[in-house]
């Protein structure tokens, strides 16, 4: 996915970002780190074609895309994303019932097991905790068999233990799938744990060139290296604020 020369403005305000370029490598997990209000979520919506930039284009496999597609699934931080009138299994089956492209072979039971909710299919969203809901949303997004997952701070409202469990779930989901993930966060630790590549966005909506995660593929979140890198990144991040 290539985001090329994107500019997004709100009326009578300076541009959220202007002439922004970003290339998301296929199969990678790219973390977009930046302070609140810098335009990360707007960028993610543009990448999902759920928001239309004033200038620039989005290229997938070299072709420009204009309209949203189930192939690029957006997950928000919102606690209320599941449809409350359907139970969890029906929520996950929703893309298939709606005839979304790629969802034909979706198996709700398998997806629920994958996200660690094997017995929650018959429950309704109101009966789930925040962490369970986010896992169910993840399963629902996977039911559309997307090539791209666009995650807008999906774990921000959860406590540390559930967040680290969901990080493991996300890592498991990635293994064995051709899935490209663009994750927006302002949690430096989360970026270090999950990302292959990290991109900083400053308060003016400018992007730094993508950097490889200094920790490499084998990451131990309790190692001294992890903490050293986290401190270094946090200092850099604070300079952006």
């Amino acid at each position, binding site marked *: 996915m290539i985001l090329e020369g994107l500019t997004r403005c709100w009326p009578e305000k300076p541009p959220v970002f202007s002439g922004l370029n970003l290339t998301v490598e296929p199969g990678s997990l790219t973390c977009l780190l930046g302070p609140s209000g810098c335009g990360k979520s707007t960028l993610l919506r543009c990448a999902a074609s*759920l928001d239309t930039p004033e200038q620039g284009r989005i290229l997938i496999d070299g072709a420009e895309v204009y*309209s*949203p597609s*189930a192939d690029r699934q957006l997950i*928000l931080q919102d606690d*209320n994303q599941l*449809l409350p009138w359907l139970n969890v299994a029906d929520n996950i089956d929703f893309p298939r019932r*709606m005839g979304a492209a790629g969802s034909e072979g979706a198996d709700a039971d398998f997806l629920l097991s994958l996200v660690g909710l094997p017995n929650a299919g018959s429950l309704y969203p*109101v009966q789930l905790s925040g962490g369970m809901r986010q896992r169910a949303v993840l399963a629902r997004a996977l039911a*559309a068999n997307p090539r791209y997952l666009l995650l807008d701070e999906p774990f921000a409202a959860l406590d540390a233990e559930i967040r680290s469990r969901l990080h493991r779930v996300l890592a498991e989901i990635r293994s064995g799938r051709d899935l490209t993930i663009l994750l927006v966060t302002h949690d430096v630790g989360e970026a270090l744990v999950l990302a292959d590549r990290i991109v900083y966005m400053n308060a003016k909506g400018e992007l730094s060139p993508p950097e490889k995660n200094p920790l490499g593929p084998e990451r131990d979140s309790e190692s001294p290296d992890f903490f050293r890198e986290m401190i270094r990144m946090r200092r850099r991040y604070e300079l952006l604020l």
Partner: protein
Amino acid sequence: MEQSEKNLCKPRHTVFRSRFSASRRWLWLLALPVLWEIIRFIIKPNPLLMPSSSDIFLAFRNDTVSGELPIRWLLSLAVVSAGLLFGLAGALALVLLSRSNKTAASILSVFSSLMHPLPGLALMPLVILWFGTGTNAVLFIIVHAVLWPIFVNLESGMRSLVPAWTLYARNLSLGRWKTFVHISLPGAFPHLISGIRIGWARAWRAFIAAEMVFGAVGTMGGLGWQLFESRVMMDSPALYAALITVMLTGMAMEDFLLGRWETRVRKKWGEIVP
């Protein structure tokens, strides 16, 4: 040591629910005949104006045993339900129109603002010209009473949908029709039930009033016609018995059907903490 049940913490909403449960509200009704008799004892009214509670009870029992009151009651419910269904179908059609076209939405918004506050009986002279008197006229008044509150509530529900649901529908590239049927309509369901509740109460009142003005529905007439007949015959106990039936039906619908339904749906939708 095992904690006794008495010492266990009871959530506040459970306490609230048990104190003000529907069944307890109904127990208070038993006190009304006593209050009625106290008032009669103090003001000593003409029995035609304020009959004794035992006379009202006897009239209620006689009309029930003869089958007159239950048949009129069932007929009233049937006509109001039919009007409610027509009104609901009309409101759904108007909402669909309003959602699919901005000009239609603007026109309907003005039209609903004009029609919603208009009492059905104010249309009486026109309705008599259009439909004459009888069942059709009464049905028209009921549909008018139901249509606008359901439309206004449903419109408001669709405008206040959770943004994440509509965003999800767009993410799946659902068309307008699928979004309306599978996202907007179920998403606005709690508002639809609120509209039905308001619509039902308005329809019930409109039916009783319309029947007293337009005449009996069917061959026998409903509760409105019984009120009218009892007044003409100066049969005060039967008049009060019919009035009590009208009031208790309204309260029962609220407490045991529509009110409960709305609470259950709002809990499921996460609008009320279960």
